[in-house]
């Protein structure tokens, strides 16, 4: 029998995530090359031009998602901001990952049921959202208004821009990406061409509260004639 599937990543979220991924990598590479002076002066200047150009795409992508798909943005923020008893209970065993991945008997065996995002994802994604917004604001202020802001403020904003992006990239590359690779169904849903759907059983295993509370059959969504 055909397995039941659920749409996890609509097109708008896939576009936002994947453009974000590509532009983030390009921005961190060009930024690191410039900041640590790993290239000569003319190349550094070229890298800065690229950094600004890609920054424009990065900015449009974020605000495009927020304003053109406000429903999805609101749902995402809602899912990230709900911290109930089960969310905090997740930290007792970190979702069972230390036990599963490294054989470390940490906390209870049973994982507290989670919503669309588990507690670790909520914490990480809130940091990502804050940093995306913060890097856009600090980047454009550093580019457009350094003279109007004063040296001390520019200095701290510059440090926030550089080290904030580096630390967030480490979080993304060392934690978010490896865990995303482990979760194969989500990974395929995010990167395959077409619908970003996952098997209902898989969704129920990872996010039982999401399946139980937030989903509905597609037919029910059709308008009644």
């Amino acid at each position, binding site marked *: 029998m055909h397995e*039941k599937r*659920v*749409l996890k990543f609509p097109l708008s979220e896939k576009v936002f995530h994947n453009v974000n991924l590509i532009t983030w990598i390009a921005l961190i590479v060009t930024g690191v090359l410039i900041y640590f002076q790993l290239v000569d002066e003319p190349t550094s200047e070229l890298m800065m031009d690229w950094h600004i150009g890609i920054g424009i795409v990065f900015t449009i992508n974020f605000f495009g998602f927020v304003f053109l798909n406000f*429903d999805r943005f609101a749902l995402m923020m809602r899912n990230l901001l709900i911290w109930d008893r089960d969310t905090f209970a997740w930290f007792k065993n970190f979702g069972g990952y230390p036990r599963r991945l490294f054989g470390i008997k940490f906390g209870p065996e049973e994982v507290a049921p989670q919503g669309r995002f588990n507690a670790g994802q909520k914490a990480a994604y809130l940091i990502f959202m804050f940093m995306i917004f913060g890097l856009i604001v600090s980047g454009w202020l550093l580019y457009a208004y350094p003279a109007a802001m004063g040296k001390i403020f520019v200095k701290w904003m*510059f440090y926030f821009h550089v080290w904030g992006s580096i630390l967030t990239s480490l979080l993304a590359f060392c934690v978010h990406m490896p865990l995303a690779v482990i979760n194969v169904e989500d990974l395929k849903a995010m990167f395959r061409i077409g619908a970003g759907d996952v098997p209902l059983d898989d969704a129920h295993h990872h996010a039982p509260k999401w399946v139980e*509370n937030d989903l*509905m059959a597609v037919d029910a969504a059709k308008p009644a004639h």
Partner: protein
Amino acid sequence: MKFQYIEKPVGKIFSRRDFLKAGGVMTAVVAMTGYAITDIIKRRKSYIAMRQEGLYKDDKRCQNLKLTSSHQNPSCAKSYEDLKTEPMGEIAEKLLHTNAYFDRKNLILQGANHA
């Protein structure tokens, strides 16, 4: 159809409490950031305006004394005279001008600690 289930639309999931929570947090972040930035820029701009006013006053004073350019300053004029040259003269250019040009627009923020 590839999938049989979708997330309920936002209106069916979002309770009034959720809306207030998410809306409140987002409004607070945007408002505080906006206020901080505009306040800093406003204060900074007032310093710039004050400095500009001071510079214009200095200019007016110099104009009254017919000292609109540095080479009209008596001590500068004396230096040129002692060196047996004139402003933009060959010797002045050799002694007082630098020959190297450095493009500083992409320099890392060095010296910021001296702020």
